[in-house]
């Protein structure tokens, strides 16, 4: 007999519906899975057999063939255990076909017959949303974000009883209380660092990528962690994309939807695949996708493998990353705010000219680790110095996170009124229209270009930052020379020391 059970697999952050066809016929007892299963799916046979026997259900002593359609895509993940088991029960006559009609099944089986959660429930459920979706207990909240009726299954025995109608469907387990809101780190905790704090505020308000350069202990990490709380909550559309990514990566979603901008801070030993996503079949999302809508903080930027940093270039431009393998391809969302932190030189001390003990060659080699194209994508590049004793012992800063958030939201609203998500997205060809310059500002930029302290590409970035500065300050239409001068000071030429040594 034949049974066809709808289920799903994840590729990238998207679920794909898969029909699990189970055929049971006379012949030598045996069990075959076809339709490009990978190792984890092939192992389903042993888990399903043990689960059925533990649950007191029959294992057919017949010839069993399981086909996973469409057969062209490679199948991965243990979420196909449950549909295979259900299909087997239907095909062998243990369950009537009508009882499973209109149901889709997702779940992994334990040897004792329990149904376990699988990563990627949100995209999986989204792929079979037209059915009644049966998911492991504990996944119902996530599945309900995208699918209509959701049922939960705790064990195979319970599931069979519910399907036959002997017992009602079990209730979803009580939702654990949402994690208590930990007060986010406040910008007011940072003493001194006026320039760096301004840069943090501008990065949040205008979506400008930020590079912090400074010696250890200057407060780079402290500053970077105060950026994410300044970001506005995610729009529903971005929130759904971020939720899909987190679910596909197998991360717990205690609050259901991801609504706050995420903060990802991978260690500098991260591999290219861990950073941009990939893997042979599932194309698991990487850190840049997990940071979608939020902030990707790369501490010790210079220590990341050059290939990993260069892998960021295309996603930084396009906001998506397209991962292609011989057998699969996926497009993952990756629009994030990049915050980098680096020491100025190998000894880390940096500081005013002449105070560092590194040789010229060592310093050049260190800075050269940061490739030009990557450096170029930072609209804001500020040096963070150790605060002076006066600043450390002085009165706390006036502006806290709460004050800044108000300004950030206003600037974001102004950008939205211009039809942009943020000022960093200002297209170069619309700069004259959306960020017009006063004559004095124009003269200042001309001088900088003539002196070679500003490049053509740097010019656009400086103008975008100046736009954000003016929006944050008072929201004038025109950009004045003060904003331009400040925007230029917030984009330190990292190669200055190299240039000057020539």
């Amino acid at each position, binding site marked *: 007999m034949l049974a066809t059970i709808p289920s799903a697999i994840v590729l990238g952050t998207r679920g794909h519906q898969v029909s699990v066809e189970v055929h049971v016929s006379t012949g030598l007892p045996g069990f075959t899975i076809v339709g490009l299963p990978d190792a984890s799916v092939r192992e389903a046979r042993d888990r399903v057999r043990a689960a059925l026997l533990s649950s007191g259900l029959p294992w057919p002593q017949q010839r069993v063939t399981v086909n996973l359609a469409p057969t062209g895509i490679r199948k991965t993940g243990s979420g196909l255990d449950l549909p295979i088991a259900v299909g087997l029960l239907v095909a062998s006559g243990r369950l009537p076909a009508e009882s499973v009609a209109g149901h889709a099944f997702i779940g992994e089986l334990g040897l004792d017959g329990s149904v376990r959660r699988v990563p990627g429930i949100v995209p999986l459920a989204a792929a079979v949303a037209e059915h009644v979706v049966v998911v492991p207990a504990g996944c119902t909240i996530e599945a309900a974000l995208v699918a209509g009726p959701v049922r939960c299954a705790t064990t195979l025995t319970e599931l069979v009883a519910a399907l036959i109608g002997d017992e009602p469907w079990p209730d979803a387990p009580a939702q654990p209380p949402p994690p208590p809101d930990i007060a986010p780190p406040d910008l007011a905790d940072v003493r*001194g660092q006026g320039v760096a704090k301004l840069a943090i505020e501008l990065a949040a308000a205008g979506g400008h990528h930020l590079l912090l350069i400074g010696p250890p202990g200057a407060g780079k990490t402290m500053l970077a962690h105060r950026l994410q709380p300044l970001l506005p909550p995610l729009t529903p559309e971005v929130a759904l994309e971020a939720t899909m990514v987190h679910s596909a990566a197998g991360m717990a979603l205690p609050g259901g939807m991801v609504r706050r901008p995420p903060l990802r801070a991978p260690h500098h030993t991260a591999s290219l695949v861990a950073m941009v996503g990939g893997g042979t079949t599932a194309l698991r999302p990487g850190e840049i996708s997990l940071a979608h809508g939020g902030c990707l903080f790369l501490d010790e930027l210079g220590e990341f493998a050059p290939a990993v940093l260069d892998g960021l270039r295309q996603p930084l431009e396009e906001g998506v990353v397209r991962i292609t393998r011989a057998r699969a391809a996926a497009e993952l969302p990756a629009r994030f705010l990049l915050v980098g932190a680096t020491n100025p030189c190998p000894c880390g001390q940096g500081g*005013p000219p002449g105070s560092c003990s590194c040789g010229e060659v060592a310093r050049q080699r260190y800075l050269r680790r940061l490739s030009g194209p990557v450096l170029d994508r930072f609209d804001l590049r500020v040096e963070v110095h150790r605060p002076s004793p006066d600043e450390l012992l002085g009165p706390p800063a006036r502006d806290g996170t709460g004050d800044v958030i108000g300004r950030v939201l206003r600037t974001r609203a102004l950008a939205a009124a211009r039809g942009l998500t943020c000022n960093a997205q200002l297209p170069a060809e619309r700069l004259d229209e959306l960020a017009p310059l006063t004559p004095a500002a124009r003269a200042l930029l001309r001088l900088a270009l003539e002196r070679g302290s500003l490049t053509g590409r740097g010019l656009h970035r400086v103008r975008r930052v100046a736009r954000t500065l003016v929006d944050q300050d008072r929201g004038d239409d025109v950009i004045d*020379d*003060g904003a331009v*001068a400040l925007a230029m000071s917030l984009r330190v030429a990292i190669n*200055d020391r190299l240039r000057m040594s*020539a």
Partner: protein
Amino acid sequence: MSSAPHHLPAAGGDPPALGSIPIGPPVLGEAAAAAAAALASLPGITPGRLRRLLAARPPVEAWALVASGDLRAEPSLATLAARHPRVIDRWLQHVSTSPPDQVAVRCAAAGASVTVIGHRGYPESLQSDAHAPAVLFSRGDLAVASKGRRVAVVGTRNATAAGRDIAVELGAGLAAAGVHVVSGLARGIDGCSHRGALSVQSDPGSAAPIAVVGTGIDVIYPKEHQQLWDAVAEAGVVLSEWPPGTGADPWRFPLRNRMIATLGELLVVVESRATGGSMLTVSEAERRGRDVLAVPGSTRSRASDGTNQLLSEGCPPARDVGDVLVALGLTPTPGSALAGGRRRPPEPVDRTVLALFGADALDLGDVARLAELALVEAALALGRLEAGGWLVRAGSWFEAAGTGGGRGG
């Protein structure tokens, strides 16, 4: 090697057909120039061997000899042929692959002219030197190297901002006073002294820069000096004893230094560590009886260890362009071409900001805090002061630019 100078007058009379009346050095024919360039391109021919060979025979004849493979006839190479037959084998291979006409084409492509010692156009200042290069490749106007007064300005590649400032000022001041600046186009002090010299080329009476490089004339090293290299060749001349295409090998640079020491009537060391290329140039200059001047530096700066050592050994100090001009026997004109003399006074609003800058470098945040200005105001003031030449920027740091006294920051 020590006998080489005695050959020179004889070489000057070469070829004998030109007669016995000295009417100035002979003109180098095209074929002879090509042959000389081809000889200089031979693998493993050292400056010494080349000099001895060309002292004994005119270039075309010397090439024919090398091409014949029988070097026993030539005493200057007989020992070499006997002791290192492999070198001769390599030469023979080279003779077939790089004949003079091809080498000439390569030189022309690189924009290099060829001069041979003892011939017309060869700089007189090099002519009399015992270790002068026999074949000289040049790009630009070689005549520059034969006229006027010349001062070599050298120093460390790893220079401080102050050192670079001083090198620029010295270069500009000397060139404006009509003194040719001789240097090596290396990173740091060398490049800066030529930058300074180039900055006053539009002034009437200024002297063109002379560069001596340790690579082929078309192999820019360091790469970032491409523009500087071109500008020096355009305004003055770039010299090399190596044929076009010769790469940057560490051992060639000390050899280059001996030419710098020879070409300069004086040697000024701006900054140098206790050991290094500049100190080698100093010993080359001293060997040739050239005076060496050193720019005094902070006793705490490693970059001034070498120059301070020179001062303690009795070298006269070069505190500014005036000291160098006096050492040359010239009269310094007050206020000549010092960068500080040309600055417009800062706006009154910026004076408070400028007043904050003493010995220490400050950044935007410091300035805003100390002057109690908004960041916008501070950024504007710093921008104006930098544009006016009152401050120099290194990364996010600002330092007071060299004061009018010419002694740098």
